[in-house]
């Protein structure tokens, strides 16, 4: 992303806040179902379900009351039902592995819904939805909402291999078209999601993406190059999920054209794709607000 871009030349506006505040509840797992490499958990969480909007996430305490892993684990909301919330968990480190081991009847402490939801386009706008790995799950609710607003929905879901694909059927049930890609060709087309994105972006009026950062960057770049606004749900390391610790920041260009270290949990996870400075993640560019006070000066 160019840092010299003029204030008005962004294709997106920052995503607005959610309409309702989060709650903290001890909730029961009503079902746990393996889906490929992941586990889908359905939770009896009526207050979270009632408040949730597509793009938002929940934050779990992990390990039980005596746990030594104190930080919350953020997981995207994959769907809501009658008083229930569904999440798709990929076992990774200790916390997500513990979550993936939960079974029906277990209870978990959950905070949510958190973060800003995906902003919706004008009714009738064709929308391209791109999900990488378990990130596709977070797009199912969005697909349904877009359809009900009269949008045509094109979906692309990709993963490293067939076992890591997610929500292909669910997306198929709501989207007008679904393209599947895998890096190893074990399902759908061989290659990255970008193969399909490049074909479909031209007929889209807005793009949405959820998945690993390199994928988000590729989708955002393709959309921006085609003059299409894009919204990405980022995944940045989080400690609290509620906005109090400042660990989850990314360099993001605000509506005033200035770059700030913005909290992914409360100012995201949904950001305008052309507003996230992907190339600068993990560094401190001189033009981030307050970099001068850190001793970083204009080169």
């Amino acid at each position, binding site marked *: 992303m160019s840092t010299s871009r003029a204030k008005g030349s962004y294709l997106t506006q920052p995503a607005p806040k959610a309409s309702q505040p989060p709650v903290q509840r001890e909730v029961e797992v009503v079902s746990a179902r393996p889906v490929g490499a992941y586990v889908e958990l359905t939770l009896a969480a009526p207050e979270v379900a009632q408040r949730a909007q597509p793009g938002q996430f929940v934050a779990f305490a992990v390990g039980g009351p005596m746990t030594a892993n104190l*930080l919350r684990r953020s997981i995207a909301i994959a769907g809501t039902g009658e008083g229930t919330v569904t999440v798709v968990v990929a076992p990774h480190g200790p916390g997500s592995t513990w979550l993936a081991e939960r079974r029906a009847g277990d209870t978990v402490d959950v905070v949510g819904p958190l973060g800003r939801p995906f902003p919706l386009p004008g009714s009738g706008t064709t929308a391209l939805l791109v999900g990488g790995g378990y990130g596709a799950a977070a797009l199912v609710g969005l697909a349904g909402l877009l359809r009900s607003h009269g949008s045509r929905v094109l979906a692309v879901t990709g993963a490293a291999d067939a076992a890591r694909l997610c929500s292909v059927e669910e997306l198929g049930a709501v989207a007008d078209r679904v393209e599947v890609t895998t890096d190893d060709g074990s399902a759908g087309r061989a290659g990255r999601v970008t193969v399909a994105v490049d074909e479909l972006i031209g007929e889209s009026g807005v793009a949405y993406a959820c998945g690993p950062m390199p994928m988000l960057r590729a989708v955002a770049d393709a959309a921006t190059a085609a003059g299409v606004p894009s919204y990405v749900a980022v995944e940045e390391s989080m400690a609290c999920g509620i906005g*109090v610790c*400042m660990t989850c920041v990314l360099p993001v260009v605000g509506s005033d054209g200035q770059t700030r270290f913005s909290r992914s949990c409360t100012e995201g996870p949904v950001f305008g794709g052309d507003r996230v400075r992907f190339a600068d993640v*993990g560094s401190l560019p001189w033009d981030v607000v307050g970099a001068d006070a850190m001793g970083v000066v204009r080169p």
Partner: protein
Amino acid sequence: MTVLDTAVDMTTALGSVPLVGPVLTASGCSAFGQELEPFVDLTALGAVVTKSVQLRPRSGRPTPRMAETPSGMLNSIGLQGPGIDGLLAGELPWLAERGVPAFVSIAGTRVEDFAELATRLRGVPGVLGLEVNISCPNVESRGEVFACDPLAASDVIAAVRAAADPAQPVYAKLSPDVTDIVSVARAVTEAGADGLSMINTLLGLVIDPDTMKPVLGGVTGGLSGPAVRPVAVRCVWQVHQALPEVPILGMGGIRSGLDALQFVLAGASAVSVGTAVFHDPSATARVHRELAAALAERGFSSLREAVGYAHR
């Protein structure tokens, strides 16, 4: 509220300023309070201790800023914040409008910065007092942390006490990374500190076995959470023993009411809950409830009676 905990008088004070309860947030662990509003009644807290503010807005350090550790975490946020103008225009009025008392943490890299911050905060509505974060590098002393040098630390506190509103108590926040915390405590009290906040984080380092490099962008970070609690309780104990008249705001790994009780028994008249809030956003209210119940069970009719009890 149970019958048990309403029976205990939980009021306390920061210096001369009365507090409705002994549980506060910890600086940098609850931002400026706003985000906790869905989870706790902020007006029932002793106070919101705000994220350390400096004169100018600060971006903070690049990511990664955090590493989870056994019963704790390492952070290197780098004091990201709006600067004093932003604080005075946005966060402090928000707290004041809601009647939420603010204990404002200030930080700087030279003595004059601290004094200027104290001046700017004089008479600001809702500001109960100042917590002086002296765990900052001193630019005039090749980056040595103020809190590690009794002389530099007392220079800061003397300047802040002279500049600050006389009605606002000044607490010096001490670092545990010193050989003799009592000598620093004594120096800052002689320089005019009305109380002591202890402890700040301990310097730590985590190396990623895969990349074989430090996890944090800033290499080292501050260790917090229950892992540091025994160190914190020891610091409170030693300082209270040496300076029994000096009020202490105790913190470091408090997760439950019984944890808070240890600090009170060691000599703290109020406590801050930091990292535990990341685990449980309603931790401050829960710790208050559990502490009240624990005091009642032990036959105390007021919190004040229990302060320093372990020394008697």
